């Protein structure tokens, strides 16, 4: 891809926090995420003002459902409440369910490649603890075809991804015990990884494979067919920010920081595909295909093609494990195994933290937490950290290229970014 887009860095909030319990507003989450992120990158309010005068900067806010959870929309403009340096800065909110962060990233990179702007501040955010889990579950139902798939259904998404688990099992004629054990191992890995991540929601929660395998009991209730609580990511409050720049600014920034342009990783490839929105249509369409989620696979392929890289070149993955079944399907979408053989990679430790193809060293959505509109940006931040060697205790040794997969709905909106130096 021509016209490189560089990632200058960013920050996320502590996903363990419950902002409602803290008596804090939606704006507070926005304010802390933006202030922390800009401070970490080293982009000052004065610099933002200067860039804005030259019409070189834009803001892209990923958010799924501020209206329902926080009774607040118009988030591109709402940013002006965070700091007066954003007065006049072009900003807008981008929405694609759980892929909202990625659609904001994509809009940002497009503006940078076209040189409309030189710098893009991308913020993903969601506040979700304002309502009970059943009300929140209903809100999340709007990421599916609400009338057909969610209306009157308690916790629609665990049920949809429970169906995915069923389809995978049936399509590939898998041994049920072995398959469910592999899903439990996915939980174990994500929780174990989250223990190393100081911003992860579950960093002090207990989990092991034995517990993840006790589905249906008092302490691990079934919530969606075969799937139990331990198979689900937990919603939370959180935000993440990354700053992207094109070469025009990245060079200027590197000079200012006394470093080289090569210190910053680039977005090497990306993919964006939309599958049929209902799960039923997805399954019907994929019959006879090698992959149950062919559009997810296609998105990964698009990103590989654009980057000129392939599975063998990717050292670390961040995937959208909203449920264990989605991470399971992603393994073959990444090309780590053939479809139907994902459990082998799981059992052999391939995707574990020290494995050959580690997935979710951050803990992923299951371990790190899933503030819906923030997840895509958080993944980009984590891939940035990995390829710059700044992931601290959850650093994958020697990671040069990373790939993130962020999906909205029941694998409906698919986004992939490949980032590396």
């Amino acid at each position, binding site marked *: 891809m021509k016209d490189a887009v560089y990632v200058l860095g960013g920050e996320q909030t502590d996903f*363990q926090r419950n902002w409602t319990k803290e008596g*804090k507003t939606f704006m507070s989450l926005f304010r802390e995420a933006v202030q922390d992120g800009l401070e970490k990158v080293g982009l000052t309010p004065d610099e933002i003002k200067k860039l804005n005068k030259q019409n070189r900067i834009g803001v892209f806010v990923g958010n799924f459902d501020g209206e329902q959870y926080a009774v607040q929309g118009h988030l591109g403009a709402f940013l002006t409440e965070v700091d007066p340096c954003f007065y006049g800065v072009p900003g807008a909110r981008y929405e694609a369910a759980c892929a909202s962060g990625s659609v904001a990233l994509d809009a940002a990179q497009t503006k940078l490649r076209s040189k409309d702007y030189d710098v893009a501040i991308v913020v993903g955010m969601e506040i979700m603890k304002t309502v009970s889990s059943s009300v929140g579950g209903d809100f999340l139902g709007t990421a599916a075809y609400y009338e057909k798939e969610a209306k009157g259904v308690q916790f629609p998404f665990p049920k949809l991804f429970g169906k995915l688990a069923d389809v995978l099992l049936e399509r590939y004629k898998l041994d049920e015990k072995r398959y469910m054990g592999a899903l439990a191992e996915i939980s174990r890995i994500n929780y174990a990884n989250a223990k190393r991540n100081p911003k992860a929601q579950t960093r002090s929660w*207990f989990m092991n494979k034995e517990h993840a395998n006790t589905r249906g009991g008092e302490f691990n209730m079934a919530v969606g067919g075969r799937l139990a609580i331990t198979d689900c990511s937990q919603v939370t409050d959180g935000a993440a920010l990354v700053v992207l720049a094109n070469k025009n600014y990245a060079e200027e920034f590197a000079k200012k920081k006394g470093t080289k342009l090569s210190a910053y990783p680039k977005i090497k490839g990306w993919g964006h595909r939309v599958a049929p929105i209902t799960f039923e249509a997805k399954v019907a369409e994929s019959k006879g295909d090698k992959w149950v989620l062919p559009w997810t696979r296609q998105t990964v392929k698009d990103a590989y093609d654009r980057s000129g890289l392939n599975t063998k070149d990717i050292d670390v993955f961040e995937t959208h494990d909203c449920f264990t079944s989605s991470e399971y399907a992603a393994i073959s979408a990444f090309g780590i195994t053939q479809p139907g053989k994902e459990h082998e990679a799981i059992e052999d430790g391939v995707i574990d933290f020290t494995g050959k193809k580690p997935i979710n060293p951050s803990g992923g959505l299951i371990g790190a937490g899933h503030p819906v509109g923030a997840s895509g940006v958080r993944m980009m931040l984590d891939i940035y950290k990995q390829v710059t060697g700044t992931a601290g205790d959850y650093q994958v040794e020697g990671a040069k290229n990373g790939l993130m997969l962020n999906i909205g709905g029941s694998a409906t909106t698919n986004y992939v970014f490949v980032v590396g130096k």
Partner: protein
Amino acid sequence: MREIKTVTVLGANGTMGAGSAAIVAAFGKAKVHMLARDVNKAKEGIEKAISSIKTDTIRPRLIPGSYDQDLEKAVSESDWVFELVAESYEVKEPINKRIAKARKPGTIVSTVSSGLSIARLADAFDEDGKKHYYGTHFFNPPYKMILCELVTHAGNDKKVTKKLGEYLAKTLGRAVVYTNDTPAFAGNRIGFQLINEAAIKAEEYSDKGGIALIDAIMSGYTGRAMAPLDTADFVGLDVHKAIVDNLYEMTKDAAHSTFKLPGYFQKLIDRGDLGRKSGQGLYKMTKTPEGKKEKLYYDIKGDLFVPVPKFDIPFIKEANRRMGEADYIGAMNIVKEAKGLEADIARYFIARYVSYSLSLVGEVVETKEMTDLAMGTGFNWAPASAFVDFLGGPKEAISLITKAKLPVPEILAKAKAGKPFYQLKDILDARSLFKG
């Protein structure tokens, strides 16, 4: 230090014992001998342990037993003996003698005493036993409160201490605070200083709202989810008394007089009003004739319970509002500039908390990060160093402390301006502890 595969928990039926056993069995995957006065009590402890951490998978690893029947055998096969029996030398020392006889060389023995001398308790052991004897002060409830104060004494081996600290942190997921063998260690010394002084001030201002007024002043914007006197009521006035009496007797620092238990606390304890656990203490919940829940507080002068009033204190409202908007410095500026008695009290206690927390560096802990971590993870109170930053830095904090006529800790006096004073940002986001 050898690998911890088998653990004996003494006092396994209490909330702390059962909760700690659950942590060891779940995170540490250890087999745990759950010992209590009798085996039925131990079995109750097993149920408590399972429900505290919400996993039945630890059940096969929890083995019930009694002190009379099982102590020696359990201890002899354990890598760690974790003692949580009653908080007195009279109870702990005879048990320690039995542990000392049964223990194999290399076995760690630790106590969760919150106030007794670890060195004195270690005396029951031979040289190897002394070397392996520690305070491991967990907080209640252990699954939620991740602090563990690892208390050392002169007889410990630094290599063993390091390994044990790593085990507690990495395997059991504790926030480990290394403290010296000093009364009440770090968390309780700081926490109960503030609580007891709040209780003293409540008496001083009993005609202005007393207990309810002090708690209203020390609400969310001062960095705590639960106000201090409400906390005393929650932990129990008898437990509070045990801790502050010990501190009054054993310490002679600049806050010494503030550890004296107020007379009305003793009065309430004497008549069995121990706090939430006995139905009433400093507070009492009741129902109005209309059936609505109502919170009453103990009116010290009148010796009766009266409804908690809705105080209208403008600076608190404004400080809370600013906290709610993540304007931490703005909120502290409101507190710094507000006029009136309530503002004077708020400033005094913030100054006292910062001054006292940081004054323990050197005596109780090595670094200020240790007191910050202790208060943040053991009490859910905003750490002192975070206050320093939100007050505007060391100079502003010193000014507040000086105006309150309190000692300026050396570490604060030596601090450089322009650098964040709080250094645990990537471990504990202190902002999360300030409530709007």
